């Protein structure tokens, strides 16, 4: 149930926490990674032991800047870190190092695509503004066991980029589309892996409702720590319905922090909310203000990949791909680049290549990999092209053989399967299997004439001559049969039309 009554409008802002793709932590040299034994990835700086000083990881700063450049943000000349003070056992120092007043990224926008009326129709595009993004440290992980809680600090100090949107999102579908787009941008630029199963992307979701046409924003609630796109979508739907129900019953909305129980599909109020001023932010005395050179920004700008929707427009407009194939290819940068390498080897038929890549190649790669999408349950599993047995130029070769009429489209599927199995060139497989189509006009003419003379097809011929174009197909079967399927279908069609006048 995602329908909002027509006289209500929902306003959504997201805070997306992304673990950056680095080897060491953000202020310490401790390594980090998923699936290690508890507290094995902790050093004295992470724990804030006496005598230690945090030093900022260059890679974490550069990945943050790169994100900013991907979304067209401003990279201020200076950024600085603050202490956010709070007492909670997930936090070994009793403060979290974050950026309050001088974040590394300011502004920017993310283009999103909403679902179309059907799978092969492109939906509406919108731009969602980014307010800012700041570089902070992740906190430890708590688990609750009986009367106590257990703390694992492996996650404490992992570089975390918090991306804060403007309240530009207007539906659960837009929130979903935004997260899909953001994940694609982050992964394609190598900023983050965004594997939600490993907790690499978590979301806080601000929701308010107002009467349509009202200027003033309604009172918002913040639901914290959502760890999948579906949880964000469900939270928006749930919170929207709850707030409208409250307001229509004459009650008011309390500004509060909420949690989400994905199993029960319902939200709940978190106890003991601390207000922003309770965090007693102040500039961290251990980390000096960082000046970011324009040379660094220029160098990183060269690493920004083509925006996925710019790529999609190019595929549709310049290469003539159908929307469906283009939208599949652009979601995965490696796949898109693989496709482009194939097109470079056979520029005459990008759609033919796209069709094989988006359907056959993806299907076979997925079957040989098998893993499911983690953050986004609806998205196809990421495939590894590194182990792909077919090289782009080989696929181009297969499409060229089809385009030249050497093999039929049906045979191309068979050759593709063999290529995927053996890694051989298409031409070698065609020769080994004796698949080359018969393009000998003289021999084929004789067969065509014999088939036309057969009284069994007289009715089809009469229908064709009476204007029923499709009737000609009934003649192709017997010809194919007599040539054991090796006749070139294009040539058969030409000859039939010639003889039937």
């Amino acid at each position, binding site marked *: 149930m995602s329908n909002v009554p027509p006289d209500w409008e929902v306003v959504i802002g997201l805070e997306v926490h992304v673990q950056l793709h680095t080897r060491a932590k953000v202020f310490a040299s*401790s390594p980090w990674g998923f699936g290690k034994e508890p507290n094995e*990835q902790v050093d004295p700086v992470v724990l804030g032991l006496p005598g230690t000083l945090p030093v900022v990881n*260059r890679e974490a*700063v550069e990945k943050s800047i790169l994100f900013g450049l991907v979304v067209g943000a401003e990279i201020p000349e200076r950024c600085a870190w603050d202490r956010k003070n709070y007492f909670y056992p997930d936090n070994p120092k009793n403060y979290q190092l974050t950026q309050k007043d001088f974040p590394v990224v300011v502004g920017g926008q993310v283009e999103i695509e909403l679902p179309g009326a059907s799978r092969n129709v492109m939906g509406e595009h919108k731009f969602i503004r980014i307010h800012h993004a700041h570089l902070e440290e992740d906190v430890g992980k708590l688990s609750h066991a*009986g009367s106590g809680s257990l703390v694992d600090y492996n996650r404490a100090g992992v570089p975390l980029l918090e991306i804060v949107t403007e309240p530009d999102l207007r539906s659960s579908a837009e929130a979903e589309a935004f997260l899909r787009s953001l994940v694609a941008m982050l992964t394609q630029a190598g900023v983050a892996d965004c594997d939600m199963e490993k907790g690499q992307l978590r979301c806080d979701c601000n929701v308010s409702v107002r009467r349509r046409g009202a200027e003033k924003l309604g009172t918002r609630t913040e639901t914290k720590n959502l760890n999948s796109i579906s949880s964000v979508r469900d939270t928006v739907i749930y919170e929207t319905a709850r707030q409208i129900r409250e307001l229509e019953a004459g009650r008011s909305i309390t500004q509060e922090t909420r*949690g989400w129980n994905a199993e029960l599909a319902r939200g709940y109020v978190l106890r003991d909310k*601390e207000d922003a001023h309770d965090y007693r932010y102040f500039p961290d005395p251990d980390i000096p203000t960082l000046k970011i050179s324009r040379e660094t920004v220029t160098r990183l700008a060269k690493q920004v990949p083509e925006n996925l929707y710019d790529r999609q427009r190019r595929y549709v407009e310049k290469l003539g791909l159908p929307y469906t194939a283009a939208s599949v290819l652009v979601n995965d940068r490696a796949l898109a680049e693989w496709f482009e390498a194939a097109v470079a080897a056979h520029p005459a038929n990008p759609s033919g290549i796209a069709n094989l890549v988006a359907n056959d190649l993806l299907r076979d790669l997925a079957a040989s990999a098998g893993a499911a999408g983690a953050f986004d349950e609806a998205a196809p599993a990421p495939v590894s092209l590194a182990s792909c047995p077919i090289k782009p130029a080989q696929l181009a070769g297969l499409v060229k053989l089809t385009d030249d009429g050497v093999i039929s489209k049906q045979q191309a599927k068979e050759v593709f399967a063999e290529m995927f199995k053996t890694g051989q060139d298409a031409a070698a497989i065609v020769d080994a299997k004796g698949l080359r189509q018969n393009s000998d006009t003289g021999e084929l003419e004789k067969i065509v004439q014999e088939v036309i003379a057969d009284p069994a097809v007289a009715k089809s011929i009469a229908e064709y001559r009476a204007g029923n174009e499709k009737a000609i197909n009934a003649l192709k079967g017997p010809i194919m049969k007599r040539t054991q399927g090796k006749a070139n279908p294009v040539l058969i069609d030409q000859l039939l039309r010639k003889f039937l006048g």
Partner: protein
Amino acid sequence: MAEGFDIDHLAKLARLSLTAEEKALYSSQLNQILGHFQALANADLPATIDDARVVDEAALRSDEPGPVLGAEAVTRIAPASRDGQISVPRVVDDES
């Protein structure tokens, strides 16, 4: 100087339960500290003071993983531990 804080609220944020005597003592001490900062805030300082603590990117660390303490050492300095994890009183952040 008038009290710019609520001692009960501060105690709650710090997860401390204070006696009436402690509240009076800490309120007086906090007032002294705040008074000191007020004096600092009133000082006439050059606007460029921030430059003293600005560094360029040369001051950043490279992304090279270094040594870790190990769970044994980490848990040894904690008051209580279990199975390589630090044991604390139950904190509730789930549905209740």
